[in-house]
């Protein structure tokens, strides 16, 4: 396949297709696949000048990113690699190739270890005898709770069932399997039980540049009830879930899903006048979040922009866009 005058290697086309068709799922796996695609592309570079190499990598980067336009981890993985190439100021094609391959490997190892690091850092925030609450299912937040439990700190975890798809049951099972005392509650009981909660630990689907957390519907109500009851709220999230688009003002789209997730088909047929509104995510404002536990450290949500700029090379506003405002003629 040829894109912008460059031949894209077969393996890279295959990886893009796997991501696009959702054969590869999960924020972490998509990200690792994306980084690997760039390493493969670098190794298969047919030859040319350094300038051509950089251009080629940028073309491949755009090609891979376009597999899932709304995913957050994929463009971050790609940017992670590309920004290290640009920052590295290579002198030869060989050096440049080396940089891309190294950055991609670094990212893969990094993301594989991210959850383990988050578990360690997060568990430090949990104190002996704490009663916790969690919502939905998140690998990172389960890892934090399990690690804290192994350290003998967790008294009990209230797990919200998380309608409509009941992902809370996955969390409940994973925690119970590790021996954690679990109380499964309906979502409506969040404020009733919040008085007993010391800390809330949830995951994230995306973190916006201002530190707002996009997560499963209901998260913002948990955070609000926690704020009211002065329970702490921690979001466990790998940094590649920080959304690069939001820094240029894009809103994170909130997907509406099928009504049959909420009510049975027969009920819908009997009640044609009722619209079932089924938003998947909601947005928790940064002021309700005490900290985001990332593999890079426990950071205030407001530091999200710092991570996007420093780790993923996201420029707040591109120089071209900036100058177009300065010089509208």
């Amino acid at each position, binding site marked *: 396949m040829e894109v912008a005058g460059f031949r894209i290697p077969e393996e890279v086309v295959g990886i893009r297709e796997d991501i696009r068709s959702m054969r590869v799922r999960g924020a972490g796996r998509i990200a690792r696949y994306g980084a690997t695609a760039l390493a493969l592309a670098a190794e298969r570079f047919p030859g040319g000048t350094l300038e051509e190499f950089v251009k080629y990598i940028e073309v491949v980067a755009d090609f891979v990113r376009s597999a899932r336009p709304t995913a957050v981890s994929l463009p971050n993985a790609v940017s992670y690699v590309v920004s290290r190439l640009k920052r590295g100021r290579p002198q030869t094609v060989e050096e440049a190739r080396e940089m891309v391959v190294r950055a991609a490997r670094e990212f893969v190892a990094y993301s594989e270890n991210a959850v383990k690091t988050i578990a360690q850092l997060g568990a430090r925030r949990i104190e002996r005898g704490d009663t916790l609450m969690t919502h939905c299912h998140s690998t990172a937040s389960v890892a934090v709770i399990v690690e804290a439990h192994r350290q003998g700190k967790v008294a009990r975890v209230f797990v919200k069932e998380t309608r409509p798809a009941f992902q809370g049951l996955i969390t409940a099972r994973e925690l119970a399997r590790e021996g954690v005392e679990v109380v499964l509650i309906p*979502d409506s009981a969040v404020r009733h039980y919040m008085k007993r909660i010391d800390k809330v630990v949830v995951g994230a689907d995306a973190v916006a540049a201002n530190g707002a957390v996009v997560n499963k519907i*209901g998260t913002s109500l948990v955070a609000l009830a926690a704020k009211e009851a002065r329970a702490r709220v921690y979001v466990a999230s790998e940094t590649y879930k920080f959304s690069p688009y939001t820094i240029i003002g894009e809103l994170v789209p909130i997907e509406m899903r099928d009504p049959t997730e909420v009510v049975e088909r027969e009920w819908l047929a009997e009640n044609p006048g*009722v619209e079932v509104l089924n938003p998947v995510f909601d947005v928790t404002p940064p002021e309700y979040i005490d900290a985001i536990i990332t593999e890079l450290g426990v950071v205030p949500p407001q530091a999200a922009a710092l991570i996007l700029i420093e780790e993923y090379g996201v420029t707040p506003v591109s120089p071209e866009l900036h100058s177009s405002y300065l010089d509208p003629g």
Partner: protein
Amino acid sequence: MEPGCAEALTSYRRVLDEAREFKIPGSTEAAVEILRSLARALEGCRGDPRADLRELVYSAVDSRPTSQSIRNILYLFLDKLRRELRTPEAGGVPERLEHLVREVEDYVVGARETASELASRRVEDGDVVLTHSYSTTVLRLLSRARERGLRVSAYVTESRPGSEGKLMASHLWRSGVKTKLIVDSAVRYVIKDVDKVFVGAEAIAANGAVVNKVGTSAIALAAKEARVGVYVVSGLYKFGAETLFGDLVTIEEASGLEAEIPPERVAEIAPYLSRNLRLRSPLYDVTPPEYIDAIVTERGLIAPQATVYLARELFGWPRSRETLERVLTEVAPLWR
């Protein structure tokens, strides 16, 4: 012909079971059904030792301990009975109790109609309201607003456990209200679009706190955050008089929660259910008065903290402790 005592008692127990299992939607409906059935049992069992008035009344209260309607409606009935028994010209125990039941019913139905009428005046054309659980009073007030030609649309929460929000949504759209059903978790997501929250009540405490279906307090909190008005629509017969003496309103625990989750999903957690994993939920929660803009009663739209002032006309002031118990103490011996 009077029904036999045994038959009347069996039927009374059945009504209590239905109330306990929430087969009668709405706490007022449940209370009125219980009262009618109690009166039939008393008529059919005069002088019969199988029918102990005190036991009959308390088993009704215990069928739904959070419900103040049941406690208060039975109290109002017994209070009327006591007055009748005390009247010198009464000539003893009345043969029939229908007229007393009707007086209480008339008051209760009238109170609810008036409260829903007053609350409907708060609805403005084009309003988007949010409601929770199933409430006949809220249903009435929105229907009234519709009858007046106002355009109203409503968000209804599913209201787990029990999911009676689905029934509410079904009834609402049939009465001409544009209705959207959401999961309980979506409340904060939609609240910015909402103009007013209307809910019913299971009990109102002396300090103005409202006990209602679990989830109500989180809705009120989200509404407060978004500066959306919260209105509780309730007859004064839901006032929890015992709370004046420091008693807490009993909050019932839900049972049979496994049945509310698809069986294939319960299977995922089944191995841990008898061990370190439990399913729990209260049926009700407490919304503090500061999250409530007004309680709309048959005597007017008032601050939640002022409910005690209006309720004194119904239950007397200064009050003596344990009114239900006291009236039973007086009536039970006379009834024999």
